[in-house]
């Protein structure tokens, strides 16, 4: 079956540009997560949605980062006025669970963002 998909797979942005990264979770999955992964590091949590509700955005590094999931399925991570330190792979993951039984998450392939 279809897994989590993300688009674009690669994005090059000039410093100061705005970017929007899309995530299509597995159909029916309640939970959706965004992570930032720097080269050679593990994923770091950015934000979490349960259906359309953004329950936790404590990992967003600045107010330039904004995420939404208006209909409880597709999610978009937007970064305004990109900076070089924003260069990373942005991973999306979904889970069928609210986090009470299993914490297994299904990851997409990521979007590699390069800010020049």
């Amino acid at each position, binding site marked *: 079956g279809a897994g*989590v998909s993300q688009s674009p797979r690669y994005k090059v942005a000039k410093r100061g540009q705005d970017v929007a990264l899309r995530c299509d979770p597995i159909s029916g999955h309640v*939970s959706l*997560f965004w992570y930032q992964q720097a*080269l*050679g*590091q*593990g*994923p*770091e*949590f950015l934000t*979490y949605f349960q259906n359309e509700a953004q329950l*936790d955005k404590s*990992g967003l590094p600045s107010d330039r980062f904004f995420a939404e999931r208006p209909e409880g399925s597709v999610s978009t991570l937007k970064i305004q006025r990109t900076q070089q330190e924003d260069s990373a792979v942005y*991973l999306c*993951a979904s*889970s069928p669970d*609210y*986090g009470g039984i*299993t*914490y*297994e*998450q*299904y*990851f*997409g*392939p*990521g979007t590699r963002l390069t800010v020049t």
Partner: protein
Amino acid sequence: GESVGLHLPTLSVQEGDNSIINCAYSNSASDYFIWYKQESGKGPQFIIDIRSNMDKRQGQRVTVLLNKTVKHLSLQIAATQPGDSAVYFCAENIEGSYIPTFGRGTSLIVHP
């Protein structure tokens, strides 16, 4: 052998050998642990999980061992294959929290 590179610890093994990847976790309140495999250009993929009320769990060719006393987790891969080459991450969840904390990762290289 095992070495620490600039970015990731690396474990090199021969095809057919058993591999052991180690992880030290940080929070004694963590009660759920997952091992993920990440191949180049892909997102992490679930391998196996274990709860803190267990000290061992086995899957297909993989075994996870948990030592809560020293906050240590290991992943054993039997009869390692070239397709096992990837970066392996452990992740921990504190009870009641849906947000995992990922460890640094270990690069496994399997030589045919």
